[in-house]
């Protein structure tokens, strides 16, 4: 990005002044190095979002921001429904409520002997449905699907997939309220009938990891994290149902923009007023999509827990937390010392509630929300915590991952899947993936340096470092 186009406010905060149709400034959180590497599209898209009706305070971009569709990936924007504010299907993304959850076990790195690691990798690969065309073990009829869309992870637990205690460590207690499953189309339902409990493909994964470093002992203690502890992280979303909702509403919003007198700087920013029939229908369907993602990750948790306990008999596998990073949520925020109800879009960004938030379970309240940041095969993942400053910085939001540094196309020209699998095996990382081309497209080198993104997030006060995780087993689709 051309740094002459932005003004530097601090080591990690850059402003795009509000010009032209922009209603608020753009704010990008990044170090100078990350800013120089960031593509110009982030500037353009952050500025475009700043021009949308009802936007409050600023259009934000996180340190892992990159070119998205309409909104940048890594974008955060809040809209006031009483000031003509909008909701955007593109601002949520096609994979509604895609997110990460991390499970902590009572096993240590020393327990993961090579034979056990092999056994666990094979067992996880066997029981976790992954990849194009895979189906889950649940086959839901119309009524069961509706129940799932209303109940989320609570529905999954009530059907024997997981433990009641899991629900305390999921955003919204595992069930997003305000759903309107009647606005989820038949096509979306058909796509989901056999997909509950599937991982998907692309950058989605299940990883067995170990705690390589602890930065914040107090937060780690509150989260139950110990050095060299084995953990499991799952990254996936709402599968075909979410994709279908996203596609249908984005299309409808694009066609309806003129009817709502929305002067959009770019057609990709397709949106509708929050207080409109289309906006309300989308919110109802999108919230059902959030529950679909929560149910999906809950079923996968159950399968992973069973697989782990097959290899490590009677092992404890507890849910640390579950975060979604493609959402629009109705939240209360302080604007000019007044509490306002806003609709906060986080597209490739994680909610990061600071200490004391009543929405957190009591055991996490003193230290802030666990913020789970996915890495890539062969690189670190991180556990962060929301800070006292999170709210003032960007509506309690942080980054979501490393963010791509090059396209999939470019990655396949630079790396071969077999070579990567072999190289990672030499580093002690077992990769289980049915597609070698998929492995090449997801090469660790195709992503930004996750360490640089985490340092910038920490320095900017968006969230603070708690622990670093390194991979041992990677299951991908």
């Amino acid at each position, binding site marked *: 990005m051309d740094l002459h186009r932005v003004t530097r406010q601090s080591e990690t905060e850059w402003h795009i002044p509000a010009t032209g149709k922009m209603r608020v400034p753009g704010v990008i959180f990044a170090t100078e190095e990350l800013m120089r590497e960031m*593509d110009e*599209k982030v500037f353009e898209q952050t500025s475009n979002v700043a021009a949308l009706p009802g936007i409050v305070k600023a259009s934000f971009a996180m340190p892992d921001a*990159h*070119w*998205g*569709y*309409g909104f940048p*990936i890594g974008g955060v924007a809040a809209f006031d429904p009483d000031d003509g504010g909008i909701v955007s299907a*593109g601002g949520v*993304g*096609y*994979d509604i409520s895609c997110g990460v959850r991390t499970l902590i076990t009572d096993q240590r790195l020393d327990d993961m002997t090579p034979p056990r690691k092999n056994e666990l990798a094979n067992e996880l690969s066997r029981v976790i449905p992954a*990849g*194009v*065309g*895979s*189906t889950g073990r649940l086959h839901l009829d119309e009524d069961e699907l509706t129940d799932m869309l209303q109940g989320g992870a609570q529905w999954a637990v009530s059907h024997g997939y997981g433990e009641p205690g899991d629900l305390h460590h999921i955003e919204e207690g595992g069930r997003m309220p305000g759903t309107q499953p009647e606005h989820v189309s038949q*096509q979306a339902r*058909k*796509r989901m009938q056999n997909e509950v409990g599937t991982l*998907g*493909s*692309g950058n989605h994964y299940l990883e067995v990891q170990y705690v390589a470093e602890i930065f914040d002992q107090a937060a780690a203690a509150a989260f139950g994290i110990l050095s060299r502890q084995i953990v499991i992280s799952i990254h996936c979303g709402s599968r*075909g149902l979410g*994709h*279908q909702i*996203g*596609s249908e509403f*984005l*299309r409808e919003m*694009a*066609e309806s923009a003129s009817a709502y007198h929305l002067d959009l700087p770019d*057609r*990709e920013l*397709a949106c509708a007023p929050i207080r409109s029939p289309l906006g309300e229908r989308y919110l109802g369907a999108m919230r059902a999509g959030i529950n679909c993602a929560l149910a999906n990750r809950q079923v996968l948790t159950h399968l992973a827990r069973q697989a782990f306990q097959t290899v490590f008999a009677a092992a404890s596998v507890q849910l640390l937390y579950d975060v979604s990073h493609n959402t629009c949520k109705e939240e209360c925020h302080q604007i000019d010392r007044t509490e306002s109800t806003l609709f906060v879009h986080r597209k490739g960004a994680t909610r990061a509630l600071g200490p004391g938030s009543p929405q957190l379970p009591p055991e996490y309240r003193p230290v802030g929300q666990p913020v789970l940041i996915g890495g890539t095969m062969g690189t670190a993942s991180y556990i962060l915590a929301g800070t006292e400053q999170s709210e003032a910085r960007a509506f309690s939001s942080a980054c979501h991952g490393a963010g*791509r540094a*090059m*396209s*999939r*196309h*470019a990655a396949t020209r630079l790396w071969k899947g077999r070579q990567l699998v072999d190289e990672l095996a030499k580093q002690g990382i077992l990769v289980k993936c*049915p*597609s*070698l*081309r*998929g492995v090449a*497209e997801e090469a660790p080198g195709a992503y930004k340096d996750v360490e640089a993104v985490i340092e910038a997030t920490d320095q900017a006060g968006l969230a603070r470092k708690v622990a670093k995780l390194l991979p041992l087993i990677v299951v991908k*689709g």
Partner: protein
Amino acid sequence: MGKTADHSDLQTRPETGSGENRVNPTGSRPQTWELFSHMADIGIRGTGPTLEDAFEETALAMCAVITDPALVRPDLPVEVHCSAPDSGLLLVDWLNSLIAAMSERRMIFSHFKVIITDDKLHGKAWGEIVSPQRHRPAVEIKGATLTELRISRDADGLWMAQCVVDV
């Protein structure tokens, strides 16, 4: 826009296994497809003498994101119908209809036939049920986006259709 609505064309079963390398357009092959870079996702582009040809090639490019189309037997036909107020949204609808059909039926496609009449598209796709062992699919496609969405016709009359797909 496009051909007349004689849907008998859709009944023609495609030839199989031509083995031709259809990646990258050349001057001698006006009907082609290619992929182009997008940071997080991937761009698909089809060109051809008619708008329908360009739409068929774009669909082929989309399936090449998943696997090598030469590996996919065009055994099972699926019909799709859509309509849109402009050719850009019609392309997005066509591609999203195929994505939904692949997802619902666990299929991959390799051959396509499109007929466009005014604002309506009647299409047929041929493919087979996904075989993880034989197709080794790299990635599933979540949706066709409005990003880089473009329909154009050059001075030689060649049509081009493109957009980015979210993977």
